[in-house]
């Protein structure tokens, strides 16, 4: 509250100005415009059902997060001896082998980040529902969530690489486990949830709060 300058009060909504923004190419369009004259995307004042969709996708992601962590991501077989590895068992194994930094990386990328994304989405959605004072901070959180989403596919990327590359017959193979599908689903659904979230709603929430 205090950190923001007083001129925040001079903010003008796009709707107030009779304008709307193309969320795809960020062109400012007239209010009556149906489609973006530049990129042809549909232009909305506010995304319809944005909150509901975000909620649904976030919930889906949260649910899928459970099997993604409990079920084996991949099975690495050496000489026919294979033990399905969950994310966490993989991390433990890395630690056991003394590769703590990598373990931390994997842990962060595979466990912490998706979890934080989910929590962040939930936080944003709650903030929209219950408008608070410092909504501009949520704006930053949203950007972080969107930005980090593309990196969440790291695990799946590695797994798909391994599965594709390590097929040495009986000597060693890597096969993806059902956890990988769940994990990929978590990533995709969190990204979709973030995309479905209309950040302008934060402004509306801030407006409501101000009023």
């Amino acid at each position, binding site marked *: 509250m205090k950190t923001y300058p007083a001129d925040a009060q001079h903010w003008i909504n796009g709707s107030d100005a009779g304008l709307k923004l193309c969320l795809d190419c960020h062109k400012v369009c007239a209010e009556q415009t149906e489609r973006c004259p530049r990129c042809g995307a549909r232009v909305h004042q506010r995304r319809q059902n944005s909150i509901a969709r975000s909620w649904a996708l976030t919930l889906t992601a949260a*649910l899928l997060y459970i099997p993604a962590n409990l079920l084996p991501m991949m099975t690495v077989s050496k000489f026919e001896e294979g033990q399905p590895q969950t994310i966490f068992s993989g991390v433990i194994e890395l630690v056991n082998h003394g590769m703590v930094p990598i373990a931390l990386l994997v842990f962060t990328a595979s466990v912490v980040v998706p979890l934080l994304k989910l929590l962040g989405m939930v936080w944003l959605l709650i903030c929209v529902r219950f408008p608070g004072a410092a909504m501009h901070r949520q704006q930053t959180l949203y950007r972080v969530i969107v930005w980090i989403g593309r990196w969440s596919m790291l695990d799946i990327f590695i797994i798909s690489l391994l599965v594709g590359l390590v097929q040495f017959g009986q000597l060693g193979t890597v096969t993806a486990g059902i956890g990988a599908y769940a994990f990929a689903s978590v990533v995709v*659904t969190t990204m979709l949830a973030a995309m479905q979230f209309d950040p302008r709603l934060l402004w509306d929430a801030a407006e409501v709060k101000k009023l």
Partner: protein
Amino acid sequence: MNQNTSAPEPARANIKKRGNLSLVWLLPVVALLIVVWLVWKSISEAGIVIDVEFQNGRGIKQGKTEVRLNGIAVGRVTGIAMSDDLKSVDVTLEMDRRMSTSLTDKSRFWLVRPQVSVAGISGLDTLVSGNYIAFQPDDTGIKRKKFIALPSPPPLGEQEDGLSLTLRAKELSSIQNGSPVYYRRLKIGEVSSYDLSVDDQYVDVEVFIQPRFAHLVRRNTRFWNAGGVELSGSLTNLKVRTQSIVSLVQGGVSLYTPDWEQEFPEAYQGDVFPLYRDYDEAEAGIAVEIDFPLDVALGQEKTRILFHGMEVGLIRDIELKDDYSGITANAVIRPDAVNLMVKGARFWLVKPSIGLQGISGLETLLGGRYINMDVSNKDIKAAVPKRRFNGLASQPAASPSAPGLHLKLRADSLAGVSHGSPVLFRKMQVGSVQSHELTDDGVLIKILVDPAYQHLVNHSSRFWNVSGITLHGGLQGFSIKAGTLNSMLAGGIAFDTPDRTSGKVKNGTGFTLYDSTEKAHQFGQKISLIFETAEGLQVGTKIKYKGLVVGHLTDLKLDKQEGHIVADALLGKSSGWVAHEGSRFWMVRPRLGLANTANLETLVTGQYIEVLPGSRQDAAAKTRFSVEMAVPDDLPVNNGLRLQLVSSQLGSVRRGNPIYYREIPVGTVTGYRLADPASHVLIFINIEERYRSLVTSKSRFWNASGIDVKFGLFSGAKIRTESLEALLAGGIAFATPEPGEPVAAGHQFTMAEEPESQWLRWAPAISISQEMSH
């Protein structure tokens, strides 16, 4: 999307703010379903945690070591901890939930480690994958969660689904743990363990047959020790056998199921089989015991048993009977010869022997002695199984099944005939003597005539002994008879078949074996002669007619009731005509006397019986005659003139005294008899045929015995006698006054004591040549 908003009311656009239930909410629902399903699945498939106590935890890694069932992981070690007493290791296992019903107190765990031994490498997979814990489930026990692992892997057969068998051997030989079990030199299993049997008498070898080969083992399958190199056979038939180099080193067991017994059921788990020492022992299957007498030197084991030259079995071992009364040979008979092991089968030892019939059993010199066996077709058909036999020391008579004609000959004595003696037909061997045995009244000889010659025997056949040398003879000559040289030395039997058209004989027909060919060929008529005494008589005493042998005695018997001797006599082939009513028989014996010596030849040739056939040709046949002990008095010695002299005294007249005419003997006294009534003496004389005409009804007879001495004073002494012989032995003289009609036979004259002087002067001219010409 809101379904309701898509259907706007035509009146006014009233946008309802209804429950904004979007399709997107399907996603979390689906996700929820997935999660629920996954959670349920993971819970339902969560492992069962059990504790297993190991003696040591060598090679067990937490989280790594697997529990395997038939090579499939069914569990994993989740924790290792020392037991409280530090003597064992408690291993926590997480078992597959599907094993829940198999975790009972009968289930077993053991650690599989790589093992390298001569018998091979086991658990090689553990070199790469690490040790693992083997699990053998058993659903039948009581469920539990704590187990104690086996200290070492159980025998192979118990680990897997294969067939576990016990082989009972006399000695372990080169078998060791892991020794292979071969079927047609393919390894199908291995020896899992061995131990002494409960009674310490055998070695029990446990073998494990892999499941896919289990059907090869049947109840009649034979196992034998295939280890090492096996040399068997004899000089003529050496066999070297080995299964493989591996078995050479580490021993092995081979098995084989005879083709001819494939219908036997498959073996069951835990069946006990004998483990034979070698292939030969195993091959022959049926155990048979043969009892041999002690004097049969069987000598060696592995004596073969041959049936018509084919090997049907083998003597496996020989043992003395408990009472030392004989030898019991344990034989194994090839299963395909089982049909021969029936009642009636005979076994005998064949050993080399050199005899008059040649060298027999020569092959045994090289091939070793063997046991021959024989069984008749009849016995095979009867098929009374027998497993214990009596062996013979030598070859028995050919079995009735042997081809050829089997005949029985009855003889009084064996007389040189022995086993193997030839049976000759026209001095050609057509058969042989098979056996001989004593009977109540002689000897029974069994012969076998070769099939090619059996048509030579029929009901008319006659058999006689040709053994040795037959020497017949006497002062009248010798005859030596022998069969062949072979039969002379080894004995032999000859036969002849006079009538080829006679009926055929069957096997077992009996014949009489005659002592000689003569006896065999006497086909004449049999008659009975009755004697007062058998003195000087013997079987073979000849019956003669005019010096020609017409028959002989074949038997002498005492008729106890009548007290006389009855002799059976056989008349020659063409001499039957003498056996007629009116024929007379008498003994001819040597006679020695001062004045009367006769029949001297009988001293050498023996007494004989003279026969005089009845004169009437149409007389009835007769077979029973009484034999007079001397020549009948009233019979002519030759075809002379029989006369009777009547005398008051016999004087010095004796049988055989000559009858003189002009001091020339023309006849003899054939006998004398007291007349009936006994007022005088009848003297039978016989005048030779050519002097027949000298006797007329007017002839005068006087006693010419003694010396007629006349004394005269001036004439001195006159001594007159018929002859010196008459002086010694006496005699009868006669004179005839004039020629006349010859008298008929049997005419009676009166004998004067002394001749009248005129009788001595009678000198009629009687022609004797004329008479002879008649």
